[in-house]
């Protein structure tokens, strides 16, 4: 099977899964004890019979559950995720507004986690069974064992409160106003505008949460890179390169690493799911105004449409990143069986 047919087949498999995600969301909303009208209408409109009837007709609440299901699908397909009863605004608009903050955090965490994970994985493989190897393993295990909502708290109280090295929670200082959003990512926007003080401020706020979140995925990446480096280093072509006189570092970085990184693509791609889970908690601790803290605020207020919106967005994002990961893997590794 060639690569284009593989991509086509994977893309064709996506809509049924997305439909499944929506169906689960719908079923959950049917199970929910919350009256759906509360989630659609602002409180003061609930006593207005005309508004209630109009809302019922629009969402098909006066019809059978099956009809409601189709109305719901139609609304979601047109980008209507309902109205949050905490913010009283359309959920879709809330999500779009908060997406850049989460994106900035997750990308920074992924960068930190994969750079550190690959570096430590390579060195651990090179000095296998050394003290360093064991130390990396322990550090990685700590990362996947520590609750991020606690490590965030500990880091904040050490580095911000006690030492004063990093700023407190939030994306920017309380007196700094963000300019008009271009990408919505403060670090990128300030670079585009050439606003250096703003860039360093955004960056300094980003460091701590990105480390906390990135640490949680660094372990799996480091572990995998170490394993695949060991596999690659034992192969004949490496012995060949050494025999031809290539230096140790050159063999490690030019000959072995590129091949060892191929399986790492998969784990880095899949770790996106862990990062989304971790982002929910990291954002809460760091008062980071992203999707994750939105989910928690909505959950605490039992704001059903909002939490369902986040879940659907998370599911869609997760499916897409997995797809991209698999396709990237298929392109990079010609040996993989495309099934």
């Amino acid at each position, binding site marked *: 099977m060639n690569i284009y047919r593989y991509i086509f087949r994977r893309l064709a498999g996506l809509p049924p899964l997305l439909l499944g995600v929506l169906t689960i969301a719908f079923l959950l909303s049917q*199970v929910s004890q919350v009256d759906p009208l509360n989630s659609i209408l602002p409180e003061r409109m609930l006593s207005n019979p005309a508004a209630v009837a109009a809302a019922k007709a629009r969402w098909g609440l006066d019809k059978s559950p099956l009809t409601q299901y189709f109305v719901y699908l139609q609304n979601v397909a047109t980008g209507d995720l309902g109205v949050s009863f905490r913010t009283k605004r359309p959920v879709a608009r809330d999500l779009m507004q908060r997406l850049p903050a989460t994106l900035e955090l997750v990308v920074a965490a992924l960068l930190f986690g994969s750079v550190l994970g690959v570096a430590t994985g390579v060195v651990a493989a090179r000095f296998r069974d050394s003290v360093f190897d064991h130390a990396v393993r322990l550090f990685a295990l700590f990362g996947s064992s520590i609750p991020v909502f606690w490590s965030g708290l500990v880091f904040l109280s050490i580095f911000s409160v006690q030492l004063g090295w990093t700023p407190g929670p939030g994306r920017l200082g309380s007196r700094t106003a963000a300019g008009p959003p271009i990408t919505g990512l403060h670090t990128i926007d300030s670079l585009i505008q050439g606003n250096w003080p703003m860039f360093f401020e955004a960056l300094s706020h980003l460091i701590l949460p990105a480390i906390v979140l990135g640490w949680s995925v660094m372990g799996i990446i480091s572990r995998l890179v170490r394993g695949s480096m060991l596999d690659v280093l034992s192969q004949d072509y490496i012995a060949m390169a050494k025999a031809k006189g290539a230096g140790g570092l050159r063999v490690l970085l030019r000959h072995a690493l590129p091949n060892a990184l191929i399986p790492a693509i998969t784990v880095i791609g899949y770790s996106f799911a862990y990062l989304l889970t971790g982002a*929910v908690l990291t954002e809460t601790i760091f008062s980071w105004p992203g999707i994750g803290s939105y989910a928690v605020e909505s959950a605490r207020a039992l704001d059903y449409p909002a939490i369902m919106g986040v879940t659907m967005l998370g599911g869609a994002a*997760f499916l897409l990143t997995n797809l991209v990961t698999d396709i990237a893997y298929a392109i990079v590794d010609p040996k993989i069986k495309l099934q």
Partner: protein
Amino acid sequence: MTAMGTPQNNNWAKALMSHLRRDFWSALPAYIGGLVVLFWIVVALTAPLWAPYSPLDMVGARLQPPSADHYFGTDGLGRDVLSRTLYGAAQSLPIAVVVVVVGATVGAVLGAAAGFLGGWTNTIVMRLVDVTLSFPPMLLAMAVAVALGPGLKTAAVAMIIVWWPLYARLMQSQVISVKQMDHVEAAVSSGVRRFRILWRYILPLSWTPILINATMDFGQVVLLAAALSFIGLGAAPPTPEWGQMISEGAVNFYTWWIAAAPGLAILSVVLALNFIGDRVRDVLDPRSTT
């Protein structure tokens, strides 16, 4: 039955035991992990015997830093943090056991049915698995917990819903591969009844990976349970639950000790469980030992 050739899976448990005896030093972290887990199980069962104070009553001044009277300080309501942490073990550990046991059982039964019966059963179960696994676990658990109403029980249900598909997928592939083995074909052709084939010829060779994965998942379940309580969807406030206690400590960064003990408790349990899981994987998966 064993004469028909022992499939590799059956050796896993034996391999595990012999490795545990032989490689004492490389297994040391796992032994330490086992002791830590044992410690917390004892604490969960006997906390009232040796916790210095009641977990729910005001036993000192509010927000006192650690002292000789209160080794881990007091919280915003003047309760002893150490006592609450010790009692907390009885909240956080049982929920993880319930989630792993029920999740693995439900997943194994559905996965075995899917793999053995094939056809429509297989299609329906496996599509359900695919869809459930399309959600980031934390978000799905939150959505279910909100739909069912917050509380420790619904949090457990939410986590079971998140976890069963992993076991179902594992069991299904396992049953399908065992189904094609010679001894099963021999049993089929000699007219053994279908259910008996599943029970006596297939399942004994299929359940070990489920057990191993369940061991490795324990730590993640403890973390997720604490996370749900932390955001207010698990144990309700007066209950001494670790995640819930950390959220009380997160209110103010200057009173760091409120979250210190419960945080260390979660870290020690999960780290210990991961030490064990890590060792189990090393022994059973030759690729990762290289």
